[in-house]
């Protein structure tokens, strides 16, 4: 089930980060990623500092390093693109291991990979410490329009239904002597894929109507009694953003002082 974690990236735990209310984490994550993007690519040390901060967050959330690395792998095609840059970007050349590479190309490649990786790691911490449902509540509390939250929550629910229906269909096929390697098999798969759309929808539709039948009005009452964030928790979120901003600003300053 390779797709399983993609649909629920939550990694259960009891760390401080897990307990922080979702809205604080969302604000902190977004703020921090903006700081990372604003950090000039020429200030290499600043990225080291960012990496230390984000690595610290991973440790604080007790995320296994393997999990973070595996999720970082989404980036690989993009890294391949970055690796090509030093060869194709025009500009001053330097010798690296006997190959003439473009200097701006090297810098840009480093900047791309560094920013994307740090942004990604920050988001991984958010997604791994916050269950999907709490993320939605966080967004709702941050005044995201209700239609958007509703569509997002249905999307998450349906993703579960689609996976569930796919699982049931595969068990049903296997129990009737289905051999996934034959040519007939792929045809059967294609034919049943079409029904998956309507079937998933109709199951979800009935469940939704069953919810309405029990007085559902759009909010999940009592199910998520999550208390409003305490001031200290907002403070912690803010500290993180300020830290990121400090690194970005310092990076910019020191960068100006450095020879161009």
């Amino acid at each position, binding site marked *: 089930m390779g797709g399983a974690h993609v649909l629920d990236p939550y990694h259960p735990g009891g760390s401080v980060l897990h307990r922080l209310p979702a809205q604080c984490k969302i604000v902190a994550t977004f703020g921090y990623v903006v700081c990372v993007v604003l950090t000039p690519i020429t200030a290499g040390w600043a990225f080291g500092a960012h990496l230390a901060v984000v690595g610290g967050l991973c440790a604080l959330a007790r995320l296994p390093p393997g999990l973070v690395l595996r999720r970082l792998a989404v980036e690989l095609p993009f890294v391949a693109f970055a690796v090509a840059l030093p060869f194709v970007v025009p500009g001053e050349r330097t010798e690296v291991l006997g190959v003439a590479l473009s200097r701006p190309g090297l810098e840009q490649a480093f900047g791309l990979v560094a920013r994307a990786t740090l942004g990604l790691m920050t988001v991984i911490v958010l997604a791994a410490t916050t269950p999907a449902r709490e993320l939605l509540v966080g967004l709702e509390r941050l005044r995201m329009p209700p239609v958007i939250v509703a569509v997002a929550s249905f999307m998450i*629910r349906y993703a579960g239904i689609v996976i*569930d229906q796919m699982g049931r269909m595969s068990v049903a096929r296997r129990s009737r002597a289905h051999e996934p390697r034959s040519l007939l098999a792929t045809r059967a798969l294609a034919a049943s894929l079409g029904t998956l759309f309507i079937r998933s929808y109709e*199951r979800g539709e*009935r*469940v939704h*109507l*069953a*919810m*309405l*039948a*029990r*007085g*559902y*009005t759009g909010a*999940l*009452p*009592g*199910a998520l009694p999550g208390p409003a964030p305490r001031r200290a928790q907002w403070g912690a979120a803010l500290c993180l953003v300020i830290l990121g901003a400090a690194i970005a600003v310092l990076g910019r300053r020191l960068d100006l002082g450095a020879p161009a």
Partner: protein
Amino acid sequence: MIEVEGLAFAYPDGRQVLFGVDLAIARGERVAVLGPNGAGKTTLMLHLNGILTPGAGSVRVDGVPVTAPNMRDVRRRVGLVFQDPDDQLFMPTVGQDVAFGPANLGVRGADLAERVREALAAVGLDEFADRAPHHLSLGERRRAAVATVLAMRPDVLVLDEPSANLDPAGRRELAEVLTGLDLTLLMVTHDLPYALQLCPRSVILDGGVIAVDGATVDLLADEALLAAHRLELPFGFDPRYSIAKSTGLMP
């Protein structure tokens, strides 16, 4: 209490299922809905709290038409237990699922906990509050589905084959719980003895119309009538014996 008039309905793919259903049920009545597979029983039940919208005709509950503006009100009054429990259960735990309805009605705190406890006890799932609904056996899921609606204390209870997949003791216990409730009851079932036990009145829905409406005892005694609608008493069921018993006279 419930008034269905000239109700006709076709599914979106064009198949017409109901062809003018007329049905009136008084407050406090207990009515069984019988009929062959595919007769349209479920389709009719889904109209009673506005899950489906009539193609023609009307449905009223306590005088309130079941239409969009009144939907919330109607759904507070009419509790519906779906034929397929998977359609009914959606929360991460059984306890949360049962709490969902009353919480929507504004019940909170200790009251809510008490309602959940009571509803789960009524269906014999006392110890299942923290289990995940999709990891239950089918019979357990059916019980949970009934509990979710009982917890809402509706005025009208609509049950679509509540006894399917229940073990025999569970079936009897459910019957006892239902008999103890003071509400209007509408129950679809293929289990004729169960209908006899719970509902003094029965209707037979066949071919999308109400074909027969009468006292359950009389209906079950009429073998030709039953056969005309693919109904028959189960193997080993002695109508004389049990009808006499149900009317309080031993043979």
